[in-house]
């Protein structure tokens, strides 16, 4: 922490505007107006210089049959929450999504402070037929947490308390608006850790993570949230509080309804509280960053990692050459340990005995090098170095949207066919694309496929879509591995779920939210 400030200075000195442009999305708002179909802008990331055009206009969205907000409604909410927690001005931050792709036109943001207030809001909105969009840290990548038309934004940011962390059982009870990093810090204070880590940890809310079943870089170790979340408390569309909290890992009583709220993206209920099983934080963390000559070697190394590092393996990430080089070009402060290989892997181990783990990872690397699978790389257990190497991985997605237009896909594919889509896509796009690359969570069979071009054009769009979804579907993959469906991918849901499944989803939605006021225009068409 002491040296970090100095390091930051060096970064600023060597990369003039790197930090200032870090979060800036590339130029391309103008495309919206020139594009004919509403479909054509759907899945692309990183649009809009300043403020994008209203999504209702660009995407031709028909407003649902909801009531319109009036002064009496606002007065009601002010009485309920107090004037400080009812916003009617400066709502841009709530209306625009993280990627600056979606812009809603909400006129009202409500900030309840407890479950009862959330329930009272929902009861009122259900009676009045006012549409509501629950919002956490607004870091989603598929437009699931922002209004599309004029839905009321229900911000959970005041429900930010960690209610308890039990050192003995490892179970933490937390309100849904707690920022992931703050939650993790509280857990770490007693030697535990939250079994979820992702790039947006400093602003995303744990409730949003659970609502979207967020993945991240620790799934390979701790599994996904369906396992870690022991219970939830959710407010239904009609204002009823559904208490499904549990303090036990084992609880086979009746239907496991908590799972309905994990990954349903706020369309079935608003999560207000949850209990999470937190594993003990690891005393020893080692990271290896290695270079390999072929995807075949990547797979062999992955198998070897599972076999030799199994119980301590906590991350297994793949970055291809083009993805890494783009990040290195865009962000001069990044310092890659090695260069000149078509594939790179970031392998992390977390365990309880540093010397023991180090011996294992050294053995793993030594064997890999002897067999000629691992070419070169570095391995470190210094926390500062570990962070710097992770930074490289975390900057890869930002590097791709920094200067160009990028089609981004988050797909699950069988490992044998994991990377072939990148080559196939590169061939399909030919000179139309500047970069076609892949990176992602190899350990979870989750590929982030990216197709970059100077600016959007219909020709390349038609080569990419719906091909990418058809290809994924043929391999029985998932068209959205961890980002969810939200607004941007709802037209493609059928590639991963058949019509019987989708019909039942619709029926469930109707049962829990007969008026359809909860997060409309999302997930289902």
């Amino acid at each position, binding site marked *: 922490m002491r*040296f970090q400030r100095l*390091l930051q200075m060096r970064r600023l000195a060597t990369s003039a505007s790197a930090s200032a442009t870090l979060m800036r999305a590339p130029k391309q708002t103008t495309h919206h107006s020139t594009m004919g179909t509403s479909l054509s802008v759907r899945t692309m990331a990183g649009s809009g210089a300043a403020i994008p055009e209203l999504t209702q206009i660009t995407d031709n969205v028909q407003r649902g049959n909801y009531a319109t907000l009036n002064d009496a409604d606002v007065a009601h909410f002010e009485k309920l929450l107090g004037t400080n927690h009812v916003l009617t001005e400066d709502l841009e931050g709530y209306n625009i999504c993280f990627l600056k792709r979606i812009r809603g036109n909400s006129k009202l943001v409500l900030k309840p402070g407890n479950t009862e207030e959330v329930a009272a809001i929902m009861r009122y909105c259900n009676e009045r037929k006012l549409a509501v969009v629950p919002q956490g840290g607004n870091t989603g990548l598929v437009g699931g947490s922002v209004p599309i038309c004029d839905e009321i934004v229900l911000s959970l940011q005041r429900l930010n308390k960690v209610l308890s962390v039990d050192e003995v059982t490892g179970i933490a009870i937390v309100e849904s608006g707690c920022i992931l990093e703050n939650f993790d810090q509280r857990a770490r204070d007693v030697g535990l850790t939250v079994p979820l880590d992702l790039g947006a940890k400093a602003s995303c809310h744990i409730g949003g993570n659970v609502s979207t079943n967020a993945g991240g870089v620790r799934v390979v170790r701790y599994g996904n949230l369906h396992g870690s979340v022991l219970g939830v408390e959710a407010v239904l569309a009609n204002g009823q509080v559904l208490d499904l909290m549990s303090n036990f890992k084992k609880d086979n009583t009746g239907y496991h309804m908590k799972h309905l709220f994990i990954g349903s993206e706020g369309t079935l209920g608003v999560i207000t509280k949850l209990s999470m099983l937190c594993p003990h934080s690891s005393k020893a963390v080692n990271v290896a960053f290695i270079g390999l000559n072929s995807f075949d070697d990547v797979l062999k190394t992955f198998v070897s990692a599972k076999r030799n590092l199994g119980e301590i393996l906590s991350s297994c990430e793949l970055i291809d050459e083009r993805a890494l080089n783009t990040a290195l070009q865009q962000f001069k402060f990044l310092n890659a340990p*090695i260069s000149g290989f078509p594939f790179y892997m970031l392998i992390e181990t977390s365990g309880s005995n540093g010397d023991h783990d180090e011996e294992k990872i050294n053995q793993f690397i030594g064997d890999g090098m002897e067999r000629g699978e691992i070419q070169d*790389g*570095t391995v470190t257990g210094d*926390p500062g170095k570990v962070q710097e190497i992770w930074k490289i991985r975390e900057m890869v997605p930002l590097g791709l949207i920094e200067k160009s237009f990028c089609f981004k896909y988050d797909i699950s594919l069988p490992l044998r066919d994991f990377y072939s889509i990148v080559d196939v896509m590169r061939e399909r796009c030919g000179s139309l694309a500047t970069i076609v690359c892949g990176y992602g969570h190899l350990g979870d069979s989750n590929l982030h496929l990216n197709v970059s071009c100077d600016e959007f054009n219909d020709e390349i769009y038609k080569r990419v879509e719906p091909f990418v979804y058809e290809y994924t579907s043929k391999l029985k993959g998932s068209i959205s591995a961890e980002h969810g469906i939200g607004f941007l991918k709802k037209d493609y849901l059928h590639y991963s779920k058949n019509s019987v499944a989708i019909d039942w989803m619709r029926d469930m939605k109707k049962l829990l939210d007969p008026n359809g006021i909860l997060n409309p225009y999302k997930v289902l068409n």
Partner: protein
Amino acid sequence: MARVLVGVKRVIDYAVKVRVKPDKTGVVTQGVKHSMNPFDEIAVEEAVKMKEKKLATEVIAVSVGPAQSAEVIRTAMAMGADRGVHVEVPQAEYELLQPIHISKILAKLALDEKADLVILGKQAIDDDANQTAQMTAAVLNWPQGTFCNKIEKTDAGLTITREIDGGLETIKTKIPAVLSADLRLNTPRYATLPNIMKAKKKPLKKVTAKDLGIDTTPRIDIISVEDPPVRQAGATVADVDALVAKLKEGGHI
């Protein structure tokens, strides 16, 4: 062609939160991750670069400290140092060691090893003393170039660009000399796998301060180590009038 001596100190890793011991005798080091002082990494990188450019013949990494200090010497050797010298000092004694002791040890080693150049980090991130390079130069009676931003070989010796308040200063010095590395001198490399393996076979000599004839008797007592004061929590006020009233009440306006 020169022989370069670099100092490498083992410190609590910069990404670790430092905690004061409950009895206030120091900070918690047991079970805490340590690594090479980042400024010393920069010094090692510079020395290794000199060797790659054939400006140096040999790079010797020196660390003064308890048994675990050998780890940072290994790291320096994995980065490219040729051999190491570990001046072992027991933990209890080490806690009271000051830059004056270290500089005497380094000066003695510089003479024993016939070094032409001593490169040190400008300061260590644990005690932030920023004294060792200056004192080492004084003990040796060699010229010093501190806060180096750039080091170039010129006919008569070295041309050094130094970071100073408000800008850069360029000076010339003869060798032998003592230099201290500032943040922007270079970006240290990662130790790569083949070099980590090679480093395990490089020679590491162990000596004590006594062997070198240096008196390390403590010159200080640690009375108390305290946490910095905790920032007080803020409060929200209803409007401007209330803010003004609060400020007046607190005597700020």
